[in-house]
């Protein structure tokens, strides 16, 4: 735990409406290189706002009101995300931190092929690549996520929900980012497909070594895949600990109530099979 990738200090987000609403309050957390950090909490706890906020992806009237987000790049450079200009931010995005969105259905542009949408990423961020190189890279990505390179000319509606989510993962993987933010990536999928996607995510993480911020309200799922879990409530992190600790020895009362709110099918504690 000595090699932080992303340091979030005293991070707050306010929706500047009347009256202003504080959505994230003074959050401090470090994301280590290569770890999976789970963000759990009920809807409205600010977990998604936090995840979007650290990449400055929130639309107005959201405003970041305090704190720093520092990205410790693999090449040794520290990047203060909150002080980046628009153009720097644009180049930073996806290159260093990418995202897998909830419900891949609407996350893909319905009128262009998935190949073109993957290609877009290279076209903008890797202008030195030529057309054949880009195409090879796209096919490669589709193979990695097991969608298959032959699907390069498919449209989103021609793919199943699981396939679309794989395409999103491929897209997130494109520039080999050091951090992936996953916003409920499996929520809209059925259980079997969900399993597959999770399996794939953890395989890819082993292979490429990126860190993951995994957002879900599904605490059992988080317990299974995360190294550490942050429990959020009303915009603040109420508990941050390893999965084992959260599972075996939850400190905060809210964590306990969250844990107890999930039905235990087997009757014993081990809902989750690792």
């Amino acid at each position, binding site marked *: 735990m000595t090699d932080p990738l992303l340091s979030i200090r005293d991070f707050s987000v*306010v929706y500047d409406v009347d009256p*202003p609403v504080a959505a994230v309050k003074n959050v401090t957390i470090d994301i280590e290189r290569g770890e999976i950090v789970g963000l759990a909490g009920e809807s409205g706890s600010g977990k998604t706002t936090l995840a979007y906020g650290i990449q400055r992806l929130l639309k107005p009237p959201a*405003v970041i*009101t305090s704190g720093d987000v520092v990205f410790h790049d693999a090449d040794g450079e520290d990047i203060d995300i909150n002080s980046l200009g628009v153009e720097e931010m644009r180049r930073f995005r996806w290159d260093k931190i990418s995202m897998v969105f*909830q419900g891949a259905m609407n996350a893909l542009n319905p009128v262009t092929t998935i190949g073109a949408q993957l290609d877009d990423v290279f076209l903008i961020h890797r202008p030195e690549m030529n057309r054949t190189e880009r195409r090879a890279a796209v096919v490669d990505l589709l193979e990695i996520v097991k969608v298959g390179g032959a699907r390069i000319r498919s449209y989103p509606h021609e793919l199943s929900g699981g396939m679309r989510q794989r395409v999103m993962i491929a897209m997130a993987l494109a520039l080999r980012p050091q951090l992936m933010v996953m916003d409920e990536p499996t929520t809209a999928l059925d259980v079997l497909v969900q399993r597959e996607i999770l399996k794939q995510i953890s395989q890819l993480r082993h292979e490429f070594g990126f860190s993951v911020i995994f957002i879900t309200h599904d605490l059992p799922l988080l317990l299974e895949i995360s190294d550490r879990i942050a429990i959020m409530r009303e915009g603040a992190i109420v508990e941050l600990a390893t999965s084992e600790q959260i599972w075996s020895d939850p400190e905060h009362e809210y964590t306990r109530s969250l844990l107890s709110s999930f039905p235990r099918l087997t009757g014993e504690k081990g809902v989750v099979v690792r």
Partner: protein
Amino acid sequence: MNAPAENTSTLVQPVGAGTPETASVLTAGLSTVKKKTFGSQLRASLAMFSNPKSATGLIIFGIFLLVAIFAPWIAPYDPTAQNLSATLQPPSFQHLLGTTHIGEDVFSQIVYGTRGVLVVGLIATIMATVMAIVVGVTAGYLRGWKSESLSALSNVFLVLPALPLMIIIASQFQDPPLILIAAVLGLTGWAWGARVLRAQTMSLRNRDFVQAARANGEPLHRIILVEMLPNLMAIIASSFVGTMTAAVLGLTTLAFIGVIPVSNLNWGTILFWAQQNNAFPDYWWWYVPAGLCIALLGVALALINFGIDEYVNPRLRSAGERARAMKKKGMDPNAAVTQVRPDLAAGAGVRSGRSKSERSTA
């Protein structure tokens, strides 16, 4: 994201593509929780007129309506009274909008013309709206080929060029009565409303509260009258207004071409005579006011419809309003990068300097 939604659900929602799960406020009060009756539903749906745009439109429309009703009291002259000693007079206190080539008072013609436009326009619109409701709601409620063929029928009427059809039908008669002109305008104007109503009925039919009413064994007429019709009011109103616009344009155009007997005085007829007697471009008072009246009535109707549109689809309203509100606060509504403004949280007194120093220490 939803924190504000749950704690302060009556607040303006921080909506935006970057803030998921926040689109839940779009219901706009169309479906009320209280026990529904036709009356209460109707009252609730009147809310669609209670925004500034609709209200402005309704006021302008109301003024035209009053002018039409009280035309004999407002108009200083008989609109067809000739006064050969005062032909082609420019506007003056005697003749507010001047006179025609045979000394008719243009202002009086406009006033009486309002009546001609509104009477025919309203009759046509009512006919078209009734037809649109019958065809549209039926097509929306039915399923299968019956629904498809009704839909095809309205699409056919939508695609057929209405104006030439009107010209041809109207010109088949030596002296077409007003009711016939209204009928022709109505016949060519119902299809759009029917199409939109069908789509909305189809979506309503599968909505939870309609399903629930059906499961409760409510009779069909109650489902349609109490559950569905009030929810269709906005669409009906909007198609009424749209049809009215088209009917007014159609009527004045027909009158301008000279297909409608000149005895039916309306704004188009004034333009017809102006054109026939070479009023262009010198005698502007003869042809400008009539055209402006058509445009003003059209703007009024468009305003009513904007209001309804924004009521039905709050994104339209909120997008503009929110954007302006944000501009005021110095935010760019299109910004792809979230603003960093440390002053906001700390409130007055603490400026951005604080975060600078913090940043350097971090």
